[in-house]
C-alpha cells in the first residue's frame, strides 16, 4: 500500500508526546520502510515521536550518503578504466604517431625528466643519504647487519624509491598537466584543435601519458642509483664495509622478479599520474573558477590511485 507522509516545520504537542514535523513529502512505501509509533493526525499526515523520526532520518541520510558516495566512486572508476583502455589502444596504434606527436613527446620528456634533474638530484641526495644513513644505523643497532642487502633491495630500492619518485613527479608534473589541460579547455583551445581535425587524444594526451611512464622509470632509476651510491659511503662509515663486499651483498640480494615488478609499478604510476589529471582537466566546465576545482579533484584522485596501486602490488608481492 502506498501512502504519503506530510510533516510540518513546527513542533506541536499532541497527546502529551513531543511531535516532530517537517514539510517534506516522503513516499514511505517506495522506500520500503515501516514507521513504528505511527498515528494518523488527519487523512494525509502522520505524527510520530521525535526520537523515532530523528533516528529514521539519520539512518536514511547516512544510507543515502553512503549510496551516493559508492555510486560516484563506481562511476568515476568506470570512466577512468574506459579512458585508460582507450588510451592504451591508441598507444599501440601506429597511426596515432606523427611528427606533431613526436615533437610534443620530446618536449614533454624534456620538461618532465630533464628540467627536473637539478632539483630531483638535490632532493635525492639529501633524502636518500639521510634515509640510508638512518636505516643502516638502525640495522647495526638491532644487530641485523646480515640483512643489509635484503633491506636495501627489498625495501629501499623496490618500495621507497618508486614512492618518493612518484610523489615528486606528481607534485611537479601531474599538477601542471592538470592545470594545463583545464586552461586549454576553458580557453576553447581544444575546440580549435578539433576544428583543424587534430585528434586531442593523439596530439595532447598520448605524448603526455607516454612521457609520464618513461619519466617515471628514468627518474626512479636515477633515485635508486643515488641511494645505492649513498649506501657505499654509509656502509663504509657504519659497517666498515669495502665497496666489493657491498656490491656482492647487493648482487646476492637482487631479485630479478622484484626489479621487473618495480619497473612495472613505476610505469603504472607514470600512466595514472598523467591519465587522471588529464581526465579531470578535460572535465572542466567553461568557467575559469572550475580550474582550481578540477586541479584539486585531480590531485586527490592521483594520490588515491598511487595508494591503490601500491597496495595492490604489495598484495601481489605477498601472494
Amino acid at each position, binding site marked *: 500500500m502506498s501512502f504519503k507522509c506530510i510533516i510540518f516545520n513546527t513542533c506541536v504537542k499532541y497527546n502529551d508526546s513531543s511531535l516532530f514535523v517537517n514539510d517534506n513529502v516522503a513516499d514511505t512505501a517506495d522506500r520500503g520502510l515501516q514507521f513504528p509509533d505511527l498515528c494518523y493526525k488527519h487523512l494525509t499526515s502522520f505524527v510520530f515521536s521525535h526520537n523515532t523520526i530523528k533516528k529514521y532520518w539519520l539512518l536514511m541520510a547516512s544510507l543515502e550518503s553512503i549510496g551516493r558516495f559508492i555510486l560516484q566512486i563506481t562511476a568515476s572508476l568506470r570512466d577512468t578504466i574506459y579512458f585508460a583502455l582507450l588510451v592504451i589502444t591508441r598507444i599501440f596504434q601506429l597511426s596515432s604517431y606523427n611528427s606533431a606527436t*613526436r615533437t610534443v613527446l620530446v618536449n614533454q620528456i624534456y620538461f618532465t625528466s630533464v628540467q627536473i634533474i637539478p632539483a630531483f638530484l638535490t632532493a635525492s641526495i639529501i633524502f636518500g643519504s639521510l634515509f640510508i644513513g638512518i636505516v643502516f644505523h638502525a640495522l647495526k643497532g638491532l644487530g641485523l647487519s646480515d640483512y643489509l642487502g635484503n633491506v636495501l633491495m627489498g625495501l629501499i630500492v623496490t618500495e621507497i624509491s618508486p614512492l618518493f619518485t612518484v610523489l615528486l613527479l606528481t607534485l611537479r608534473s601531474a599538477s601542471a598537466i592538470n592545470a594545463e589541460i583545464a586552461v586549454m579547455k576553458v580557453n*576553447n583551445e581544444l575546440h580549435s584543435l578539433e576544428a583543424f581535425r587534430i585528434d586531442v587524444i593523439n596530439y595532447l594526451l598520448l605524448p603526455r601519458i607516454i612521457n609520464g611512464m618513461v619519466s617515471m622509470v628514468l627518474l626512479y632509476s636515477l633515485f635508486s642509483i643515488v641511494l645505492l651510491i649513498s649506501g657505499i659511503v654509509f656502509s663504509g662509515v657504519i659497517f666498515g664495509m669495502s665497496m666489493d663486499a657491498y656490491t656482492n651483498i647487493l648482487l646476492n640480494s637482487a631479485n630479478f622478479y622484484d626489479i621487473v615488478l618495480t619497473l612495472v609499478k613505476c610505469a603504472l604510476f607514470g600512466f595514472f599520474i598523467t591519465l587522471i589529471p588529464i581526465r579531470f582537466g578535460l572535465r572542466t566546465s567553461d568557467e575559469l573558477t572550475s580550474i582550481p576545482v578540477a586541479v584539486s579533484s585531480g590531485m586527490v584522485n592521483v594520490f588515491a590511485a598511487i595508494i591503490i596501486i601500491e597496495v595492490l602490488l604489495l598484495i601481489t608481492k605477498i601472494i
Partner: protein
Amino acid sequence: MHAFLDKNRTQAAPVSVDFPLISNQETWMNIALIKQYHENMPKDESQQFVFTCLRRLGIEHVAFKRIVALSEEEAFCVMLLRAAMIQKAIIVIDRPFIIIPHLKDVCFIFQMLEKINDLYYSCHVYDYKWMADKYGDLCQ
C-alpha cells in the same frame, strides 16, 4: 558559418576568436602543427616553411613569441597562416573586426590575404550586416 565549416570539413580553415591559438606553444609551433599533424612533415622542415611564411607577412620576429605577447594584427596573421597550412584551404574568416577591433576597414585583411594567395584555395569572410560599410564596394 558553422554549417559551411561542417560542409567543407576537410578543407575548411577557420580564422575566428572562437578557435583561438594554442597558448602554451610558440607562434611558429601553432602554425607548423597543421603541417606536422596532417602531412607528417618533419619538425625542421615545417619550421623552415613557417619561417618563410612569417617573413612573407613581415612578422618573422614573432616566431618564438607566445600568443599573449602578440599584438592583435600579429595574432590575426598567425591565425591566417595557421588556416592556410591546410591543404587546398578554404579559409573562413569569422568577424575579423572582433579579432582586430581598431581596424577602420578591411584593407589590412586583404593585403595579408594577397601576400599568401598561393597558400589557399578560397577565402570567405563572415560578418554582421551592420559592418557592411567597413567592406566598401565588396558588399554591393
